[in-house]
């Protein structure tokens, strides 16, 4: 097998790979929203609600959040 063939195979698998990943990602996005695991759309607030006084949407320390 010469380098061209290896290149051809790598290239082919890469195409398959990105197709699977990208479709998988779409499924993931919608499914986790449907199951209520994660609401992706709420992240658009990260830009809108970034005033000096506003508190984080998802603070780093979730535990501390609960204590408050």
């Amino acid at each position, binding site marked *: 097998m010469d380098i061209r063939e290896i290149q051809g195979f790598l290239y082919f698998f890469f195409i398959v790979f990105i197709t699977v990943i990208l479709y998988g990602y779409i499924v993931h*996005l919608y499914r986790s929203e449907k199951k209520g695991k994660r609401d*992706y759309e709420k992240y*658009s607030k990260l830009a809108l609600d*970034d*005033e*000096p006084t506003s508190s984080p949407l998802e*603070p780093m320390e979730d535990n501390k959040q609960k204590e408050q």
Partner: protein
Amino acid sequence: MQNPSIEYDYTVAKWFSYLAILFGIIGMGIGVYIAFELAFPELNYVFGQYSLFSRLRPLHTNVVALGFTLSGIWATWYYVGQRVLKVSLKESPFLNGVAKLHFWLYFITALLAVISLFARYTTSKEYAQLEWPFDILVVIIWVLWGVGIFGLIGIRREKSLYISMWYYIATFLGVAMLYLFNNMEVPTYLVTGMGDPFHSVSMYAGTNDALVQWWFGHNAVAFVFTVPIIAMIYYFLPKESGQPVYSYKLSLLSFWGLMFVYLWAGGHHLIYSTVPDWMQTMGSVFSIILILPSWGSALNMLLTMKGEWGQLKSNPLIKFMVLASTFYMLSTLEGPIQSIKSVNALAHFTDWIPGHVHDGTLGWVGFMIISAIMHMAPRFFKREIYSKKMLEAQFWLQTTGIVLYFSSMWIAGITQGMMWRAVDQYGNLAYSFIDTVTVLHPYYTLRAIGGLFYLTGVLMWAYNFYKTMTAAKQIEKEPQFASPMAA
């Protein structure tokens, strides 16, 4: 316990904004000058050898791409980064120091680079003309930025990274990789101990060098003119309009789409050259696929304005941003069209290419940087934008300029391409080369005038910004959405 109120530190963002304005004026000033040179060659000799077209062209590309655009990117990064991570640079003296060092080192390198280009030091590779000592400085600058990004992420309060952050990170990584590989060169003085210490020779020869260069050249376009500008629009358009991103999921998907596809399209710069056929074909095919993620982002932005189109009329900043995403769509459609083999056969080497480039750079990159900096100005200075009318006038003037630019270059490019290949009834070439040069005179003139319009707009922008900084009405607190402006 309420979250302690954060005070964002805009110092470095301000500095980079000043620099973006400065480099914008210089770079586009040179651009207008060389555009006039092509129409009126006598202008070549106004400043002796220092105003020759060939000396100034690399200066133009470097100052606008590596001066204006990078400054704009960093101005917004030092602003957006703090805000979406909800952490202030003030909280970390270390990161604050790194940010300032980043700025100063960049400023000094930029000055040295300009001097070195005037003094004929160049490697000749587009967008990588700088000789090796400056390349090393650039690497240090880049590392400093990296420390800044990941440092800030390290001390963030907001757990999830906003989509703009994704794009900034991708910019950082992409440029780092490309720049390193493309600039592999051997300083001749270090090997032989003689000759000019600044001189170096490329690690790659001939076709390989071309492959690496265009892999770089194309992706430098991707990671300097596209990815970070998307980072900007995802923050500034929603923020200025007060509208959430139309579909956050689409923005995530487009991100990965772009990352997967963009790097494969570099082959379109080398169609019909001596690189292997399959690679040219792949370059074409991927260029066409690239429309999908590009339009994904652009449509997402336009749809964000859904139901709020009234703002387009009332707010000039929204005008700039909406037109920017429209131009982004135009150039990401035009690029793939030029990548089709038969079209490329005609278009390559002609003026159509600069025409295409400037749709993107003037309409998309320029407009986004202008509007982002104007959005930040009231927040920087706690003042209103000095003049809305002037902003409106600037918008229309610059839009006219862009239209003149690309329409004249379309005609010029296609005329040129057709004349190069035209044959008479016996199958001999119909035109000598000089015929194809003189015929372009009116288009070159028109383009230069279009460029002048755009440059005038940039000067108005600078004036408006300066007045906002010094003379506009003060405001009490940071506005949340639309930027306040005096009529």
